[in-house]
């Protein structure tokens, strides 16, 4: 696999992360379901998953960049598994709505597991690393640059959304209103 193809695949990975972040916002805004603290931690890990591909697009593919995403995915999977185990007892309705039969944290676990497998597959192709130190970074396409800026914008939107939801205090375990939009009695 050439470095240019690897960068294109990394850009596609960034669009996949963007899709997850948009889906999370859609559930939050359309279904009026505010993310709980564990949900937010999983969302944070999805954004951290994007840092490896951004480095690959900017500096060219390197094993250390894939390692960054692997660490983020492993932590995200652990956080999602914690929430899965909290609702594993028979009869437990789970937290939030189910989408296609699975709750968001189950989808998050599947997403992190898929990311780990995808990164492992990418690491199989040594050809992309051959000129990592000697050659200048691969020129970035508009497609890749747009992916980077889309993910950065969605992450910045999450700063605003979380501030609206939690304010400057601790987030509620089961949030139902935006703290900053709540009218005082």
């Amino acid at each position, binding site marked *: 696999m050439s470095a240019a193809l690897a960068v294109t695949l990394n850009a596609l990975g960034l669009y996949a992360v963007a899709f997850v972040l948009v889906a999370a916002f859609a559930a939050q805004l359309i279904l009026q379901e505010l993310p709980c*603290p*564990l949900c*937010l*931690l999983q969302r*944070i*890990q999805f*954004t*951290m998953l*994007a*840092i490896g591909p*951004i*480095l690959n697009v*900017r*500096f060219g593919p390197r094993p*250390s960049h894939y390692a*960054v995403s692997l*660490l*983020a995915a492993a*932590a995200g999977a*652990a*956080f999602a598994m*914690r929430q899965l185990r*909290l609702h594993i*007892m028979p009869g437990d309705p789970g937290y939030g709505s189910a989408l296609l039969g699975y709750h968001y944290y189950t989808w998050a676990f599947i997403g992190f597991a898929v990311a780990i497998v995808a990164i492992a597959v990418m690491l199989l192709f040594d050809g992309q690393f051959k000129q990592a130190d000697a050659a200048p970074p691969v020129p970035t396409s508009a497609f890749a640059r747009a992916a*980077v800026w889309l*993910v*950065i914008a969605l*992450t*910045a939107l*999450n*700063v605003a959304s*979380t*501030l609206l939801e*939690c*304010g*400057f*205090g*601790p*987030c509620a375990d089961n949030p139902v209103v935006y703290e900053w939009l709540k009218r005082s009695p």
Partner: protein
Amino acid sequence: MEFSALFLAVTVVMLVAWWGSRTLALGLFGATLIAAVAIYLHHATDVLKLSF
């Protein structure tokens, strides 16, 4: 508050990864990951109000 700070930290790491030094981005990523795990462990050690 801590989650807003984490999202802000990730945004900064992304901007450094895109515009700044690779080494600094990797270092900031490590610090942010440690902070995220610490916040998770803080919440994971809360007493759970289970119904069984």
